[in-house]
């Protein structure tokens, strides 16, 4: 490959791109760095699409992934700074905006560092090699004789900085690209990234996040703060009975509120007003007649029977090892148990917000959704625009842990803006978030094991039956994947998928299947399903890892000893041993029911694999003997995600997902009646409160610098619910086979 450095000077703010520099959401770094004009049309195989150098020698990293607030940005900065031999303070990131970054799939599946970081690492290594070769040519000395220190390349007394070599110009260097976009995009150059023995930054704590100070001082601009000249406030109207559609609208009902405009297209109905309070009042006052529909939902108490009885739309047989039928035929003992998990709401801190400015032949959109490039694709399809005419700006919104209501709010804003010819901001009320956001699916899991005469598990069958984990795909890349698209009649293309447990148990025969059933309403359902942090993971592993404890009991074995007997992967063995040791695990068989004062105490262990990451959890719970309140007082976590980039941020990332998943396991359940979802706010959809937060979370990070970094944003969600359930069993003898683990359920099982 020839390396040509384009000498064309960057022309600040030239051409049509000037406009975009003025838009909220384009980063200050991007403006300072010269943004797109210094780059080569965002080609995935161009080094300049990932790394650029400013006149004063600062480094800008560009990524199509986004940091949803866990500090992933610092991980990227460290990986770039490490390879380029610059101080992290000299590196800044631009993320997500479709005008500035290549489509790398946004935040998705914990791949921020796992895939996105690797792309940046490879690009930064290539940038360093290119710069050293440029300096070598300039000095007339072999590249091998040059050294680099904080962006200064030296050959003896001769010195030149990155800024002097290429500042303000772009690398004209091609990378090897695997021809994929989204999560699957991979790039690499000729340069080999550093070996771990050369690391100065990777694996060390201490680099402070860039977003914290503004957030804490109250000066940060959030998605909800985006304001445009002439912008109107939009509100959507949703039916009292799910599935009903508007058949008549009495606009005189909002006559008393100034300048309200109703937008009614097919089954989509919303309104706009210049003042937000007026839009809110109008949405409450507007009289809409809805179609008569049969109550769409079963009684909530029958939901799991509904799942059991429903037709399977698709069966996935993800694992089939050995002959399970023979194992069960030869078993001395068969153990079977069924576990049930409810619908969960993303219940982000606020109902999602989206802003859209639809003009003739072009669109500019601001989204808090974590997949901005897919948002561009969906908007382009909806309005029949070429993708390059749609700009999507990513802004941090009120939290996002998958596909919450952000994609819906953004598309609603776009439809309203297109209809009224003005920029529109949509942010609903609390019920628009909790009641109408997409849900994590309810599921039933049946686990069965064949045990021989010696107490050895010879066969394991794990069957899941559930609503799809993503009825409408994993992103908003097509209109029918949003409420607006569904209400406007776009043809549906459902995805049938749930998943199977991730583990490495060496039972001789294993069969893991998952059956997906049809949604209760095919279109615009408040129970439509979508990805929510570790899609399918918490429910599947609640079942599989609770069952491992049931098998330990059935074979008179300590739960840790049981797992170690069958675990084959040394990394899995190490996390289990480490978590148990840190927790001071005392081998025991069955429930100990230890009473200390007014509380029963117990410990439970669980483990799971997710992608390249494995994690074990010991939960230590207290159950009050009268109130049956369950408090997870302590956690002990052993986490192995391969190479650790930023241990301090990783710990906080784990802590927060532990708290969130504790909330899901112990408190959360979407409630519904025959007509609609009845969980509409924080009282009807309670989550963990500060008084319920654990006392301590002890985290052991098993760093493997020789391995690539894996994902860390979701893996711990998997084993956590079962660790709690197993601890509750140890404390009380009650086996929780249905989540959430409420006092009422505990009491019902108490003997």
């Amino acid at each position: 490959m020839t390396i040509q450095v384009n000498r064309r000077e960057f022309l600040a703010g030239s051409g049509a791109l000037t406009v975009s520099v003025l838009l909220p959401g384009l980063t200050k770094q991007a403006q300072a760095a010269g943004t797109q004009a210094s780059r080569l049309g965002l080609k995935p195989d161009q080094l300049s699409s990932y790394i650029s150098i400013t006149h004063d020698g600062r480094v800008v990293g560009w990524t199509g992934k986004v940091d949803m607030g866990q500090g992933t940005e610092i991980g990227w900065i460290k990986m770039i700074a490490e390879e380029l031999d610059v101080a992290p303070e000299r590196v800044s990131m631009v993320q997500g905006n479709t005008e500035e970054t290549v489509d790398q799939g946004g935040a998705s599946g914990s791949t921020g560092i796992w895939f996105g970081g690797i792309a940046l690492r490879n690009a930064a290594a290539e940038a360093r090699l290119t710069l050293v070769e440029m300096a070598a040519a300039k000095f007339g000395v072999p590249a091998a004789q040059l050294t680099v220190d904080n962006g200064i390349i030296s050959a003896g007394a001769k010195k030149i900085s990155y800024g002097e070599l290429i500042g303000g110009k772009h690398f004209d260097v091609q990378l090897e690209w695997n021809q994929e976009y989204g999560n699957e995009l991979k790039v690499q150059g000729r340069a080999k990234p550093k070996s771990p023995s050369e690391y100065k930054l990777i694996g060390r704590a201490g680099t402070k996040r860039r977003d914290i100070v503004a957030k804490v001082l109250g000066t940060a601009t959030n998605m909800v703060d985006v304001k445009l000249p002439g912008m109107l406030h939009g509100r959507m109207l949703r039916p009292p009975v799910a599935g009903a559609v508007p058949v008549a609208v009495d606009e005189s009902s909002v006559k008393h509120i100034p300048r309200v405009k109703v937008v009614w297209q097919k089954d989509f109905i919303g309104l706009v007003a210049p003042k937000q309070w007026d839009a809110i009042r109008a949405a409450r006052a507007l009289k809409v007649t809805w179609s008569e529909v049969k109550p769409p939902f079963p009684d909530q108490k029958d939901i799991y029977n509904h799942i059991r009885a429903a037709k399977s739309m698709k069966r996935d047989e993800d694992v089939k090892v050995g002959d399970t039928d023979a194992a069960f035929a030869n078993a001395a003992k068969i153990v079977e148990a069924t576990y049930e998990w409810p619908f969960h709401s993303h219940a982000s801190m606020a109902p999602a917000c989206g802003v859209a400015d639809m003009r003739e032949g072009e669109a500019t959109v601001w989204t808090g959704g974590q997949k901005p490039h897919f948002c561009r694709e969906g908007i382009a399809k909806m309005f029949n625009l070429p993708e390059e005419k749609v700009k999507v700006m990513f802004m941090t919104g009120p939290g996002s842990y998958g596909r919450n209501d952000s994609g819906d709010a953004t598309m609603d804003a776009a439809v309203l803006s297109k209809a009224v010819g003005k920029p529109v901001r949509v942010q609903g009320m609390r019920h628009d978030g909790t009641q109408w956001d997409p849900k994590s699916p309810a599921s039933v899991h049946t686990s069965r094991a064949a045990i021989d005469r010696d107490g050895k598990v010879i066969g394991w069958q794990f069957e899941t039956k559930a609503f799809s984990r993503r009825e409408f795909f994993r992103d908003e890349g097509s209109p029918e994947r949003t409420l607006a698209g569904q209400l406007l009649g776009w043809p549906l293309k459902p995805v049938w998928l749930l998943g199977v447990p991730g583990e490495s148990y060496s039972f001789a025969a294993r069969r893991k299947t998952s059956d997906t059933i049809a949604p209760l309403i095919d279109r615009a359902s408040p129970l439509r399903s979508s990805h929510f942090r570790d899609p399918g993971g918490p429910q599947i592993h609640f079942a599989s890892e609770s069952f491992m404890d049931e098998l330990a009991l059935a074979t008179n074995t300590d739960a840790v000893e049981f797992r170690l007997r069958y675990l084959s992967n040394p990394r899995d063995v190490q996390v289990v041993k480490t978590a148990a040791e840190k927790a001071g695990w005392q081998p025991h068989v069955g429930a100990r029911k230890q009473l200390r004062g007014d509380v029963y105490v117990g410990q439970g262990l669980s483990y799971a694999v997710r992608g390249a990451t494995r994690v074990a959890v010991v939960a230590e719970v207290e159950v009050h003997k009268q109130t049956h309140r369950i408090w997870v007082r302590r956690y002990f976590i052993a986490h192995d995600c391969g190479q650790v980039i930023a241990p301090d941020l990783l710990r906080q990332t784990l802590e927060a997902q532990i708290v969130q998943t504790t909330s899901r396991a112990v408190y959360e359940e979407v409630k519904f009646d025959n007509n609609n979802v009845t969980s509409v706010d924080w009282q009807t959809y309670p989550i963990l409160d500060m008084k319920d937060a654990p006392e301590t979370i002890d985290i052991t990070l098993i760093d493997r610098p020789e391995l690539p970094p894996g994902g860390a944003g979701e893996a711990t969600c998997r084993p956590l619910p079962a660790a709690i359930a197993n601890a509750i069993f140890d404390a009380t003898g009650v086996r929780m086979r249905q989540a959430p683990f409420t006092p009422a359920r505990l009491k019902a099982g108490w003997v």
Partner: protein
Amino acid sequence: MPSRFDLHVNGRAHAVTAEPDMPLLYALRDDLGMKEPRFGCGLAQCGACTVLLDGVPTRSCITAVSAVGAKKITTLAGIGTAQKPHKVQAAFIEEQVPQCGYCLNGWVMTSVALLDKNPHPSDAQIREALTGLKCRCGTHMSILRAVKRAAQA
């Protein structure tokens, strides 16, 4: 009928014209262009809209603009600056607390009021004072560390 209301926010006087029953939150955000109190639920269930009214943490999403009167309003941006952050803000920065940061307003403002009344709270008192606030990202452990750090500052 829309009426004029004089609001004293972070030491400055502002006038807004609004329906008397409009919550203070919308006056601060939409009329005065402030970013820090945020709409979370509109039901006083989460705390994202918290401001101090004469030092008392108050949910601005259910407080009618007409009910504020002459009370002094302090928002998150009014308690400290980059040069001189409030000790609670300094502790939240030191502990690198927020993820999305949307809820932060409620935690910081409520902690400020707690430490004003009780400069050295116990762990249980901190948990009690912060009960009723929501953080969906689950940063509770960092928040507890930060409030303890602020109490020692």
